[in-house]
């Protein structure tokens, strides 16, 4: 930000590319703390949602008014009745039931080609010949209501009883604001409400935000949103208040399996690399890091993940690029067309008859 003119001249990575120290780029002096972040290891997530609850409690985040059906606010998406990140959801646990016919798991999805089994490292369900409960539900009007049929998608995405024909792999992942090295929300904020903290995180100042909503479509991950009740934009602060007191963020504190790890970013990256190597050695070839690489489209994430499938399966963009990468070119184009419009309007008077 301080070197914005350098950035437009292409001599600086203020808008795109690797940036070793975003806090220094934002103007903090050399004495600022090290950059912190989250490493969310989804391979040990048990889907308890303690992170969601702890975040809500500590940050006093109100009811998110999840839509979906009015039926107990169930989304029909496995145990995920939160839906997605938003103004009042700063941690979101995704649940994916990877159901496939027995023996059909392919190599592309990490399956063992010889057995067709969902790979090890995760509990693979199957074998038990459980009766289908849905056959016993009487037709509507018969006094019993088929709850699944009331769901928006007729229960097609609902929880399924594994039978002997299918293998089920259950993926769970706690999503959060990525605290990008190049944060589209921050750079696009016209009021300066969004700012880079001394810890390298990205935080909204609620007393500055005027609810213009520009940050909302600027986020390549769809994290930040405007809250209907107060009109302000809100997202994860990485518990800025707790960091100042030397505490770890509430979600990491509450996580019972250390799926959410908090710490200095360089240490987390080393831990993540070691964990990935360990999983690969154990044959979990589908494990991959997401947001770890500082050469990616957002200059690397402050909050990054170990995933067990493609990012889009978890609702994450597979190859996000910060929108400001193209901003210098956009300004050049807009300036040139503005000149063109002015010239055209002037030229329209050329040799005009009256």
């Amino acid at each position, binding site marked *: *930000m301080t070197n*914005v003119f350098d950035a437009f001249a292409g001599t600086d990575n203020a808008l795109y590319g690797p940036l070793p120290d975003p806090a220094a780029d934002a103007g903090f002096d050399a004495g600022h703390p090290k950059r912190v972040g989250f490493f969310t290891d989804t391979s040990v997530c048990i889907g308890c949602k303690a992170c969601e609850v702890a975040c809500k409690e500590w940050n006093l985040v109100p009811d998110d008014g999840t839509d979906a059906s009015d039926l107990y606010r169930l989304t029909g*998406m496995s145990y995920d009745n939160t839906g997605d990140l*938003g103004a009042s959801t700063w941690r979101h646990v*995704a649940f*994916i*039931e990877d159901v*496939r*016919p027995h023996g059909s798991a392919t190599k592309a999805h990490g399956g063992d080609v010889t057995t067709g089994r969902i790979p090890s490292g995760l509990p693979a369900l199957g074998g038990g010949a459980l009766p289908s409960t849905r*056959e016993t539900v009487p037709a509507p009007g018969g006094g019993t209501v088929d709850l699944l049929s009331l769901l928006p998608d007729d229960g*097609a995405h609902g929880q399924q009883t594994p039978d002997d*024909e299918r293998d089920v792999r259950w993926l769970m992942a706690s999503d959060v604001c990525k605290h990008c090295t190049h944060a589209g929300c921050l*750079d*696009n904020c*016209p*009021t300066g*409400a969004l700012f880079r903290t001394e810890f390298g995180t990205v935080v909204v100042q609620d007393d*500055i*935000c*005027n609810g*213009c909503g*520009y940050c*909302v*479509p*600027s986020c*390549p*991950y*769809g994290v930040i*949103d*405007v809250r209907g009740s*107060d*009109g*302000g934009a809100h997202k994860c602060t990485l518990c800025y208040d707790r960091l100042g007191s030397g505490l770890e963020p509430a979600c990491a504190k509450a996580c019972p399996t250390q799926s959410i790890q908090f710490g200095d970013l360089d240490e987390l990256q080393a831990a993540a*690399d070691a964990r990935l190597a360990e999983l690969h050695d154990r044959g979990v070839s589908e494990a*991959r*890091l*997401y947001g770890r*690489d500082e*050469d990616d489209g957002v200059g690397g994430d402050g909050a990054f993940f170990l995933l067990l499938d493609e990012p889009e399966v*978890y*609702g*994450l*963009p*597979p190859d996000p690029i910060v*929108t*400001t990468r193209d901003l210098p070119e*956009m*300004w050049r*184009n*807009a*300036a040139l*067309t*503005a000149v063109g419009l*002015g010239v055209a*309007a*002037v030229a*329209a*008077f050329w040799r005009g*008859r*009256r």
Partner: protein
Amino acid sequence: MTQDSNPTEMPQRRGVDRDAVKPRRGGRGEQLQVPEAEFRSYYGRPIIKAPVWKNPDVPLYLFLGGLAGSSSVLAAMAAATDRPTLRRGGRYVAVAGAMGGTVFLIHDLHRPSRFLHMLRVFKPTSPLSVGSWILSPFAAFATATAAAEFLGPRLSERGSGRFVRRAGDASGVAAAVVGPALATYTAVLFSNTAVPTWHEAHRHLPVLFAGSAAAAGGGFGLVASSVRDNEPAARLGVLGAAVELATEQKMTRDLGMLADVYEKGRAKTLMTASKACLVAGAVGAVLGRKRRWAAALSGVALMAGSALTRFGVFDAGIASANDPAHIVVPQRERIRRREEAVQPGTTPPDRRYVPAAGS
């Protein structure tokens, strides 16, 4: 439901919106050569958040900014070339557009009482900040010009009256310098988002919006000015309509699969209506410029075409943001190309396996 009808695949693999991902028309030179998309997503949910900007506030703001911006140039030139009706109309509509646009911009805020926070910093990285700093001086210059236009004839021929008229001319020139920027910066406003249909059109939207602004300004000039004065307005309006029509065509072709949002729903209706209005207005302006009523009707059609384009682009962006295919399919394609370019079989950088030091 029987066991056989249970889903045998991951549910999200079925998240293909057949309507959203139509087969492409052949031979149109798409950038993204993807088969009818097989993509995975999280229960078919959107990946990015759609803009929370209000409709019609923001599209109308875009239209008014374009109208006021190009009208200010017409008015300044009309003042210099002695076309009083074109000058008067341009000056009044410039201030009306700036004021109306400001009202819509403030009403669009979810905390309108804090609209002045827009001016607490100047950030070149934020198109909305830059836009606020373009709109504010433009509104000031346009207001001063319109005030002089109103007061000028009512004051004495010499002395204070002459000073007011000269000051009005000067501020009119200042407004005309800023005006085109007001008309085109909104293209950066839209394209500097993660909305695929807007972002990937960042080379087209400035030209499209400049054309739209020229059509609106020229159109209003045809409505407001006499037959004696309206030739420049007709020329600008016709040129704007032509640029707008051509750019829209090129944009939807270059966007490839991302252009599908222009081919369905309300965006399609709006863009079709826009094209009809622009063609009718341009033809009318060429043929009927010398009839007062025909010129005015053509001007209205040109303005309507300009406004409908803004509404259509806005709607297309909302639809694009809500479609996970617009995120996943092009990004997968990007990864695939990058892999091809680097080395076959290489994992994309975001998933590259880097062994820990010492292991």
